[in-house]
């Protein structure tokens, strides 16, 4: 490596890989992964979320799991905490729905209302 610019580029790339260990802001996606979630198929949903984020080269996105959220009959459930927006709870998720959420909500900032818990009450 010869120049400072090259060093800066390596730093930028490398930071993406290690910043999970530091405090950071950004988007947090939580997948319900209790027994209710797992038996309803939350694992493939999570894999889809990870895979799609990967394909789109998303940074600043944290994907983790949590226990039983409470509304077990609506599992798999995915909650999205995006900076500057209110928490959104998506229910009865599938792999295809997950990919759409990534594309429309995470990337473009548009909540996919038909998948949210609010929609089930109508």
């Amino acid at each position, binding site marked *: *490596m*010869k*120049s*400072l610019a090259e*060093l800066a580029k*390596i*730093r930028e*790339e*490398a*930071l*993406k*890989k*290690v*910043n*999970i*260990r530091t405090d950071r802001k950004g988007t947090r996606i*939580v*997948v319900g*992964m*209790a027994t209710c979630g*797992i038996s309803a198929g939350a694992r493939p949903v999570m*894999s889809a979320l*990870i*895979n799609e*984020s*990967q394909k789109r*080269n*998303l940074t600043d*996105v*944290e*994907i*983790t*799991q*949590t*226990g039983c959220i409470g509304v077990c009959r609506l599992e798999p459930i995915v909650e999205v905490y995006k900076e500057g927006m209110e928490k959104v709870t998506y229910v009865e998720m599938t792999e295809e729905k997950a990919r759409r959420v990534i594309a429309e909500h995470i990337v473009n900032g548009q909540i996919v209302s038909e998948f949210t818990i609010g929609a089930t009450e109508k």
Partner: protein
Amino acid sequence: MELVRSHVLVCGGTGCTSSGALDIEAKFAEELNRHELENEVKIVRTGCFGLCEAGPIVIVYPEGAFYSRVTADDIARITEEHLLKGRIVKDLLYAESVEDDVIKSIDEVGFYQKQERIALKNCGVINPEIIEEYIAMDGYKALGQVLTEMSPEDVIDEIKKSGLRGRGGGGFPSGLKWQFTYQAEGDVKYVACNADEGDPGAFMDRSVLEGDPHTIIESMAIAAYAVGAERGYVYIRAEYPIAVNRLEIAIEQAREMGLLGEGIFDTDFNFDLEIKLGAGAFVCGEETALIASIEGERGMPRPRPPFPAQKGIFGKPTLLNNVETYANITQIILNGSEWFAGIGTEKSKGTKVFALGGKIENTGLLEVPMGTTLREVIFEVGGGIPNGKAFKAVQTGGPSGGCLTDEHLDTPIDYDNLVELGSMMGSGGMIVMDEDNCMVDVARFFLDFTVDESCGKCTPCREGTKRMLEILNRICEGKGVMKDLETLETLSHSIKDAALCGLGQTAPNPVLSTLEHFRDEYVTHVADKKCLAGVCTDLLQIVIKDGCIGCTACTRVCPVDAIIGERKAVHVIDQEKCIKCGACIDKCPVKVIVKE
């Protein structure tokens, strides 16, 4: 770019490695594979986190869950519960981080709350064997800045303004040392790093080298640029194989990236460095003995002047600094001298890394601002004395230092305050003692070490320390006389005045300081022939007290048949035959055998 959603940091310092960290890593790999999580979860082997008492340590991000005392058997549960299902395994967490069922951040627990990690910034955070992780944490940015925006004089000025003083124990202003080396006449100059760390119980430098070797490489390059050198040496003791290995890998990676070699960052600055292994001699931590050793000569000190800055390795001007001193350089360049000078006390700027050991709850490595008091370090960061015992003394500065008692606990730690009290901060070793330590034995332990390590060149050290040890041995065997205490003092002062190097000049310190603060213990050993702390076996008797049930268990285990007793009759120990091994104490079912 792979999207990994979780990082599992496994501490790979020497302490945790010897407690099974490698098995833990292997088990994680196995479990992750079993649950098909290997593409989502990354295992990272890092350097020392510092809380060695709680090792092996595993930290899982992004939650920051701090698992302590992890064994290979815990891995299956952590993987299934935490990594797969997202449920942090609370009973495996470091106890202090869980309060009322709420998990605290690790920065809030007693051990880490008061720490400010500058030299240890990357330890426990990055994988030291991957240069990109170092670069992610602003690695080599300081070097780039220095080579393209600063002149050697600018660099030296910054270091001077920061107030950084040598962290190896001497406390000499580093900026001034750099300046002397820069000003020295000579076409060839060297920079060197003292990584010999011989003090018993000290492992500050080891952790930096194991956890963040690149910071040393980068800082030495900056130093070389400042003083006008093109080659560097890292003199590292062979007893640190992990550190040596990590440094070798780091040097190789730096070379591959063009950060070592010719024309770094497209400037005309060339720099490379090599490792020289020590061979187990404490005296080679002394600068002139170290230089002799690098030259291939026997490690023996020589008189100074000339100082290494004028005539060092192969007679050339050499800048020799300690590992921890170097570990501060990159941060000073990146954050500025004013930032560094804002931490610490008036004459001692910045932070200091301490290796806390002995009778203390939180054994490990910590870094606190200069000026933190001994009380804060021992009772808040260190967690106090275990088993409800009373604090007796703290030994600072290793074999060159002295003991401090509880009247000194509120002293702010810095270079000068401790020296005034008859001790010194030294390189950062801090051994805590409780009511069960015998201070005469402590002095003897340190003197035993220095006698063994004396190079033999000068008479005061070679002969003097040996005579002092003989006296201490006699005292601990119950053969001391009151005049011995006077002799110890006279000998100490002569050796301090006349020894050629720091080893000899400071060897009497533990004796002098224990004589000053614990004279009564010496007197009891000499006049009463007793060791009240119960340590010096020759002054103790093993006695069977009331309550003996005549089971003959002790008579059977005694290796010298010193116990007389029939079944159902009270047993008695023949003091003439007894060798005080203590086997009977362990064997007695009613615990009536004691040492007194």
